[in-house]
């Protein structure tokens, strides 16, 4: 027994030693990861973005190009679908471990600036690591908030009416730049009668479309610190939605809810949908029909209220490698080869060099290029309105309450009241 116990003790000590060693190794590994610098000056930056598998393949190729040009910088990627992306990002950022560089959008700039998460990139521009030359249509201003450069656009896109072309043709509807909301309503009826399909999939919950409508009427969805419209405005917008649903002009919301995340247009529930023009690429891969782009209806026959929206790259304020991150962003927005790989996946490239480098050959991407060019030619593009801190929550609430209205669980009055209550909480007004 005495002997036995000695063995036991030795085993215990060994086990303890081993676990300590493992813990020690773990600590060392963590230290390395946090510092991400090896002896030879190689640094690793983490790049996070949202999107699907197809985008992952493309981004992988662009990173391989980048690492070839900058052999001392390694890029680790991480991607999720859009809603999950922000959940993970929030958790990481609050834990002090956000990715060094990440995909971002206008609705989040003020939010994360207020939370001290975003790096002001202007010193990097001054240091020559990041160039703001050669952006199209003043896009370089896009990521500026209160004089700080918080994001650099990688592409631009614009709201459009994505349509099922054969259904529109069959119904004899030919949308043209400058058509009015009355024309649009008449078109919805025509499509219902001639093609037996709902005209739209539920436009009244699309925040960005309502924004355009408000801008056509001299207002906007957001001001710098709140909402730019009244309860009466929203009541009018949603009352029209209710009427259209009763008349069967819009797709059955229950069916639209079932098929998500697939779009109602690709599922042949609706002849069209208001969304970003680059989504046409996705609809084409989802659906069987031929899809095209139609202009946004107007109030006065001229003004569409449109602006260029954009995906951006932002950097974390906590990054240990601001220079490398700036070089990475610079490469991604200026390198012509990157544009050839990405195509219009994240919208039309933001810089002229990349725009010229990628000449679409397939009809879908050609249509997107034509659509964006037509917007420039028609001179309808306006500067974007600001998105306050909390805008992302307002958008989610608008979409959700719009759905509740469509599904008949709320009346217009209740829906409007609920939206304003939730927005006030989100915006802190």
């Amino acid at each position, binding site marked *: *027994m005495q002997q036995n116990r000695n063995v036991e003790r030795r085993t215990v000590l060994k086990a303890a030693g081993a676990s300590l060693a493992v813990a020690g190794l773990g600590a060392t590994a963590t230290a390395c990861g946090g510092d991400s610098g090896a002896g030879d000056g190689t640094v690793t930056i983490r790049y996070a973005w949202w999107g699907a598998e197809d985008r992952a393949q493309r981004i992988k190729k662009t990173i391989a190009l980048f690492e070839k040009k900058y052999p001392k910088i390694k890029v680790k990627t991480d991607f999720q679908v859009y809603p999950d992306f922000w*959940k993970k990002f929030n958790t990481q950022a*609050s834990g002090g471990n956000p990715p060094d560089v990440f995909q971002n959008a206008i609705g989040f700039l003020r939010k994360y600036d207020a939370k*001290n998460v975003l790096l002001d990139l202007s010193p990097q521009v001054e240091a020559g690591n990041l160039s703001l030359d050669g952006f199209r249509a003043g896009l370089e201003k896009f990521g500026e908030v209160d004089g700080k450069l918080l994001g650099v656009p990688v592409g631009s896109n614009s709201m459009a009416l994505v349509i099922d072309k054969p259904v529109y043709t069959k119904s004899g509807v030919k949308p043209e730049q400058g058509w009015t909301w009355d024309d649009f309503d008449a078109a919805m009826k025509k499509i219902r009668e001639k093609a037996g399909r709902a005209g739209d999939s539920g436009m009244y919950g699309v925040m960005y479309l309502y924004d355009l409508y408000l801008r056509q009427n001299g207002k906007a969805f957001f001001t710098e610190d709140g909402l730019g419209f009244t309860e009466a405005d929203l009541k009018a917008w949603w009352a029209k939605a209710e009427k259209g649903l009763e008349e069967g002009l819009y797709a059955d919301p229950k069916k639209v*809810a079932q098929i998500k*995340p697939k779009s109602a247009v690709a599922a042949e529930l609706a002849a069209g949908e208001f969304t970003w023009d680059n989504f046409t690429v996705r609809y084409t891969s989802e659906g069987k029909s031929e899809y095209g782009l139609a202009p946004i209806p107007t109030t006065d026959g001229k003004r569409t209220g449109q602006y260029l929206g954009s995906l951006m790259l932002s950097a974390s304020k906590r990054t240990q490698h601001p220079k490398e991150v700036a070089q990475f962003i610079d490469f991604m927005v200026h390198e012509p080869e990157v544009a050839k790989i990405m195509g219009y996946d994240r919208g039309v490239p933001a810089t002229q060099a990349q725009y010229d480098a990628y000449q679409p050959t397939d009809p879908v991407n050609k249509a997107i290029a034509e659509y964006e060019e037509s917007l420039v030619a028609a001179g309808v593009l306006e500067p974007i309105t600001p998105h306050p801190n909390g805008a992302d929550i307002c958008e989610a609430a608008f979409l959700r309450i719009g759905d*509740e209205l469509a599904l008949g669980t709320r009346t217009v009055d209740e829906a409007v009241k609920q939206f304003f209550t939730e927005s006030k909480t989100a915006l802190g007004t």
Partner: protein
Amino acid sequence: MGTTVTHAPATEGLSKDERSEPRHGPADAPSPAALLRRGRRENLAGYLFMSPWIAGFLLLTAGPMIASLYFAFTDYNLFDAPRWIGLGNFSEMFADPRWRHSVRVTLWYVVVGTPLKLLLALGVALLLAQNRRGQAFYRAAFYAPSLIGASVSVAIVWKAIFSDDAIVDRTQRIFGIDAGGWIGDPELIIYSLVALTVWQFGAPMVIFLAGLKQVPRELYEAAEVDGAGKWRRFWNITLPMISPVLFFNILLETIHSFQIFSSAYIVGGGAGGNACGPADGSMVYTCYLYVQGFENSRMGLASAMAWLLLVAVALVTAVLFWSQKRWVHYEEGA
């Protein structure tokens, strides 16, 4: 001769180890100090082996729970330092119609789903308790859904089954009911969740089976001799005899139902661009908690919700325990 062997049997009952290290006899007995040292050493070894668990418990359970209790009384958005607001989170909850809706949905789910599941479990257990051919197969077949039921993949399959133009929709159309799929309908989606939990009746069924096997046959024989019918035997013998098992199942399943999350999140998730089903149709309590915490970054509010749920479940459990005195029978010595 007799005297020489008298000592030998004394160690016979002991194991080999004990024989090599005698416990009695003053000759080589360890001093009290040595015993204490040995005890300490053994304790140390014990704690050392337990340390992974203890560390895990402190770091992953106790620590977060204490932190969450503190956050419950603060406004905490994950980024800025938590700001003490006392009972602010709780008063906000009670004033929030979405929160009240989530409470209603959860209560409805518990009150409808749990009894249905237990009824089915008991019914099938009664059938399977009889000796029949292929009994083992049936038991396994009915139990299987409980094993796989909690998985994400089953929830995804469930979503597909109850979607528009899927098998359920087509079947009900044969009977002339054109309600469309259940998933996109804010009224019907919760029924699909109830169906999912009822389908997993296997676990309580196995426990019921064990309970039924314990009921003494003589009771039935005696009752039969007295001319008691099937129902009479069930009400007066089976039910009282298995009431402890019934109580256990009710308790477990009720607590379980209150905690429903993953199935609701997956079946309802994405429908209508909403994490909690179309028009919040399947927004159970934990689902709203998740939305507040991870989508709206309101960790303080989410913590308060979590603690309220804990208190509510504790209360329900207490009421169930209090009620058992009235209807649960424990056989003396059985």
